[in-house]
């Protein structure tokens, strides 16, 4: 078993004075797709933010977040991005008043090798042909699904080793949802490790190698995606609706 790409140990995270996560520990191995599921308000987004350094986190002695053997404690979000971790936050957040093309170019801002930018643009536009059509349009004129694609495409422009996706299917039309998940699989096939926070539990568990269940800021369950699909608690809590 290779070393984990990302290791989180005994993480407590806060929004201001309010504690949102308690004693979170998890591991993610290179090449995996790992899902984090759980109800709203469980702290899933906070977990993502903690990895990126956007939210202050506390451990119990020792590094809290270790990436590729290096501790990420106290590293600024800009620096975390340069190390190869990219987050696509929830809500299809693109830069609304810039064109799609400019949004994508911005994604490549942190690239060490600037010459790669044109080649990457080609790759990304081939993966998401819809965006090629819309490349000159201002981002805010795109539909919800297109903006989500743009956000993911933009994230790819930074050539991440590790991609964090926060609710990529949120508010999207079912057809769009399948498309998005197909694309995530394609991205993973290219060697990008993926951590996925999702409400669409069935999709998430089906495509993930392993998953964690987060409730009220605690990890309550973890295991291979398929087996969690069959788990009693998971079925009762999350699958009767989804």
């Amino acid at each position, binding site marked *: 078993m290779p070393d984990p790409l990302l290791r989180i140990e005994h993480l407590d*995270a*806060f*929004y*201001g*004075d309010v*504690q949102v996560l308690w004693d979170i520990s998890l591991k993610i191995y290179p090449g995996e797709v790992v899902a984090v599921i759980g109800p709203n308000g469980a702290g899933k987004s906070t977990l993502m933010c903690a990895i990126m*350094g*956007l*939210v*202050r*986190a*506390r451990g119990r002695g020792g590094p809290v977040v270790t990436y590729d053997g290096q501790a990420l404690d106290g590293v*600024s*979000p800009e620096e975390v991005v340069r190390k190869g971790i990219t987050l696509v936050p929830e809500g299809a957040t693109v830069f609304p008043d810039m064109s799609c093309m400019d949004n994508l170019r911005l994604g490549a801002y942190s690239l060490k090798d600037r010459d790669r930018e044109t080649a990457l643009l080609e790759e990304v536009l081939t993966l998401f042909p819809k965006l090629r059509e819309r490349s000159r349009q201002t981002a805010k004129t795109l539909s919800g699904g297109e903006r989500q694609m743009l956000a993911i495409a933009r994230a790819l422009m930074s050539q991440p080793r590790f991609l964090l996706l926060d609710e990529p299917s949120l508010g999207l039309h079912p057809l769009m949802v399948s498309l998005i998940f197909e694309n995530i699989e394609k991205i993973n096939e290219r060697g990008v490790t993926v951590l996925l926070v999702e409400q669409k539990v069935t999709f998430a568990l089906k495509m993930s190698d392993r998953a964690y269940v987060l409730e009220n800021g605690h990890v309550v369950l973890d295991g291979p995606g398929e087996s969690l699909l069959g788990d009693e608690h998971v079925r009762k809590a999350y699958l009767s609706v989804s």
Partner: protein
Amino acid sequence: MSRGLVTGLVLAAVLAVLPFVWPGYHLSLLTIIFYWIGLAACWNLMCGYTGYIDFGSAAYTGVGAYVAGILMIRLHLPLAVSILAAGMGAALVALAVGWPTLRLRGAYFAIATFALAEALKQVAEEWASLTEGGIGMTFTIRLDEMTYYWLYLGLSGLVVGLTWWIEHHKHGYGLKAIHEDEEAAAQVGVGTHVLKIKTYALTAFFIGILGSLEANRLGYFKPDDVFDVHITIKMVIMSLLGGMGTVIGPVFGASFLQIIEDILGAEFINYYLVIVGVIIVVVIMFMPNGVARTILLRFKKPAGAEK
């Protein structure tokens, strides 16, 4: 409360009697100090509590001076009537200007009010048929030294008392809520726009009265004197240094600064403005959330925060 009231009354009595004990030069200094306490308290009441910075308060000393001047000198109206009208005039201008600007970001209010002061100065210079333009106006009817002192004492006490009252009553909670988080205040039902305008007009009223009295006391004034941006600057500095958003702040700020100015003399005004500027910048650099709030935060345990 009653202990404070007694101290207050004793203090008031002492201050009221002072002119008899300390006539002449000292009386003049005290008079000026209370004038500035009054002005600073007005500025503080508006800006310290709403968080909207006014850079054009001099507009109202000017409006006050000219309304009183025109009424008394041209129309021969009695002093008391003219002074009151001066305050009303200032309040009316404040209402007109406050209405569009106070519903926008603070930046708009700050510079719009500054522009107002400069614009009115120009109007006063140009409209010579009304205001005598650059030649200036001269009051023939004036009061005696001690009356001005008592008037300023009373007015500044009134404004400070008003500040105290507002701080402890509904109006004040509303204002402070606006200062903290305007959107939340609006959602909770605080009529933010109206509250801001009322406060602005109220303080403009007093500034107008003070401005008109001072113009009368000096006897002669020109547009440059009464619309001078340095008036506003002094008011701002006095409130800042004394402690914005507190009741007693302007009292200390105004007294302290005016005494320093008196000791150093007007030639040193540039030096002390530099020093004041540096102090302001340095203080804010190290306490960007304002002096009061930073001290408060020290007493809370930091559990974690968003970067």
